[in-house]
């Protein structure tokens, strides 16, 4: 078994800034859906994804609280 930081790790959980969060959202949107964060947010809010439950859409949607 690997040496572990466990309980200590919980205290180290990193909070990202809004700018950083927006970058994360943008990176994920480009990686998974080939679109910008701005385009993703617009499409999400307007319900334009044909399969909003898909893996790639959900991987990006998980980051919405980080970047809006």
């Amino acid at each position: 078994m690997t040496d572990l930081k466990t309980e200590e790790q919980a205290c180290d959980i990193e909070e990202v800034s809004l700018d950083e969060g927006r970058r994360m959202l943008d990176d994920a949107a480009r990686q998974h859906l080939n679109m910008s964060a701005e385009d993703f947010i617009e499409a999400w809010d307007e319900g334009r994804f044909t399969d909003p439950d898909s893996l790639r859409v959900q991987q990006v949607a998980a980051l919405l609280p980080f970047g809006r």
Partner: protein
Amino acid sequence: MPLYFPLAGKAPREAFDAFVSPLQRALSCISDAVFVRSYGSATPGGIRSIIAPTAGRFVPLRGENRLHFSAALQYEIVKTDDPDRGPWKVSTKKYMYHVVTGDMTEVILFHWHPEVPPGPQRGPHLHLGSSQLTRSAVVSHRTHVPTGRVSLESVIELLITDFNVVPRRADWKETLDESRQRFHDWRTWS
């Protein structure tokens, strides 16, 4: 209906710590990834999120199946009058636990995202990935198989016991049991 963890604190930060610490311990059973939290994560007044790993990626898991994993939970820190659970507590609003192969083919996805309309997928459900289905299967990867509320701990246990993921800590069972017990003790629905 929201789910309340114990997670009560005299201050919002205390409630947040009580929420996230068991989740981080559970995650440590299979990965050295650390949750990342959104801005304002320990403050009330909006939907917050924790994800592991970062930016839409997956963590590789040890084991013959070479699986990859990601987890995301959205929550709100709310005030309550319940003397046993307050004054601050965490209400989970949404979760996603994704298990995929190395080339990002879906294996199994656990979802609860009530905001995505319409129909039965508003409740907790799972998707069987295309990698697990034959061409003639009645179920497709788009099928929403209803579930009860699924904890991160239960998904991690499934990975270890049934998907042959190699645990990273010898006390993984105790760690998951302890963490899951909190989930069961304090949830307000199943």
